[in-house]
């Protein structure tokens, strides 16, 4: 079958790879209907995530059709249209049982690498390095889905493929940020980043009753999209002093909750960006945490900062003093999607959440490298490029 492979730093190509097979009794094999580019893939493509091998298939956010089921699969049958959570959870370890699915003990096939990097390993995730599970990615004609009874969710009729696609990762990630940050009625929430995850975090904050939600970015199309489809206020950080603006909009207090949805390759328009960029390129730090720093400084005393963006290693100039002296709560997590996806499909069906607008571009699997170029450079207002395999030549 065809698949999009990582071939080295900033090198992607579509290659022929062996078809996936059932490797465990609780697996299913899914025929891809659509997958999407994700900002976290850019860190991987750029060589910032360790543990990639040339030839690895990438992609982790997808919707498809079940074509084969393992002997122990109980909740799915061939023909089911499913959206699949990007993180794989076994469903029965202590972490899964406590709804902390991205921390599953049993789905990272390379636990020693993750333990060396982070102290303890994460759950496995599709197509996101051998350090994060070693599972093949979804930008392919077919993908194997382990523990499918827990990670694949039947898409209700009435929800189209493109809308369902983003429930695989972007929507639950955003929802989790607002949920675990404890957003409640009356709060003022600031969200850094108006990509798909940032938009969904802002929407979640609104649905959880926040009094005001302010989204921050520099890309005009994304700011306009966030106002229109999410209903959030917006700030262009290249045109204003974000901290001063947030103080003004919060009676001088600062936001109650700050959600960072940018990640390890953050941009800014100040000299700090050049400093961070230089240190990252020289590998003196692995991640650029510009947006996290801003969020920590802007947050009100006693408030909460939630880090949704993906970070891989160490950052420089982390304002720990502000965390301590302002009494902040800082949280972060990879996505516990299984906890939220059924509820989010219901909200999507009810029209409370819109996602189809995120799919600004649609390309074939053969054009997947171009899709990532467009996505990275934000060409033609690209927010998410949807990749749809051409199945006519499939085995």
């Amino acid at each position: 079958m065809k698949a999009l492979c990582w071939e080295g730093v900033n090198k992607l190509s579509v290659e022929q790879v062996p078809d996936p097979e059932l490797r465990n009794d609780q697996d299913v094999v899914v025929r891809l209907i659509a997958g999407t580019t994700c900002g976290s893939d850019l860190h991987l493509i750029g060589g910032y995530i360790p543990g990639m091998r040339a030839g690895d298939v990438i992609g982790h956010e997808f919707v498809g059709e079940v074509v084969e089921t393992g002997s122990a699969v109980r909740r799915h049958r061939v023909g089911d249209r499913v959206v699949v959570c990007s993180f794989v959870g076994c469903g029965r370890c202590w972490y899964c049982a406590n709804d902390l699915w991205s921390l599953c003990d049993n789905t990272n096939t390379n636990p020693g690498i993750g333990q060396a990097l982070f102290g303890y390993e994460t759950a496995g995730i599709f197509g996101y390095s051998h350090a994060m599970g070693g599972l093949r990615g979804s930008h392919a004609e077919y993908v194997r889905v382990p523990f499918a009874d827990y990670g694949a969710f039947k898409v209700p009729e009435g929800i189209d493929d493109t809308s369902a696609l983003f429930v695989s990762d972007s929507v639950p990630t955003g929802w989790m940020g607002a949920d675990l940050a404890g957003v409640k009625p009356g709060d003022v929430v600031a969200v850094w980043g108006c990509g798909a995850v940032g938009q969904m975090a802002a929407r979640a904050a609104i649905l959880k009753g926040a009094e005001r939600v302010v989204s921050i970015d520099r890309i005009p199309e994304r700011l306009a999209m966030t106002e229109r489809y999410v209903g959030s206020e917006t700030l262009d950080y290249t045109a204003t002093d974000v901290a001063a603006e947030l103080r003004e909009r919060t009676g001088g207090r600062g936001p109650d909750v700050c959600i960072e949805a940018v990640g390890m390759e953050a941009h800014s328009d100040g000299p700090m960006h050049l400093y961070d960029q230089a240190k990252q390129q020289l590998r003196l730090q692995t991640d650029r945490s510009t947006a996290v720093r801003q969020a920590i400084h802007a947050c009100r005393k006693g408030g909460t900062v939630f880090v949704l963006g993906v970070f891989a290693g160490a950052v420089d100039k982390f304002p720990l003093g502000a965390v301590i002296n302002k009494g902040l709560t800082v949280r972060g997590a990879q996505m516990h999607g299984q906890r939220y996806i059924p509820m989010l499909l219901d909200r999507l069906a009810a029209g409370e959440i819109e996602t189809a607008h995120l799919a600004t571009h649609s390309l074939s699997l053969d054009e997947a490298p171009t899709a990532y170029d467009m996505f990275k450079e934000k060409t033609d207002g690209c927010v998410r490029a949807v990749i749809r395999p051409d199945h006519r030549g499939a085995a």
Partner: protein
Amino acid sequence: MRKVWWVVPVAVAGAAAVRRARPAHEGGERAGDRWLTVTVNRAPADVGSEGKPPAPLDELADRIDVRIRPAPGDRGTELGARFREPVPAESTSVPARLAGRDPRQELRRALRDAKSLLEAGEVLRPDAPPTTRPTPGGKLVELFTRRSGGEGVL
């Protein structure tokens, strides 16, 4: 030149793993004395007994001591194991570990597999083949992935 930069974090992670789990005799203790432990999200009765440990740990039963006790706070059962005889220092050296000759690797793998079987009913197998193109950098990652199941912080 930039093409090889991505290997650096892998090598750093490998070095960190080696440092964290360096031969036990360097710390003034015998490697075989340390209990390697996993917590299983099952009741103690489901996990087995010290005389009859769960599979595949039972395959090592003649060489290990097993400890099974309830975990605090409704977290299941702590399943621990250690070799009866101290592991020779030369078997825990970095070259021995890279060559897969450290017996603790087998024990860690058995503990992890036992936990996964008890909790999830199966041990997740990686996709095959894991990747399609051998490169020097890829071979380094492959070495770490080959050893990964038997290394780590247990």
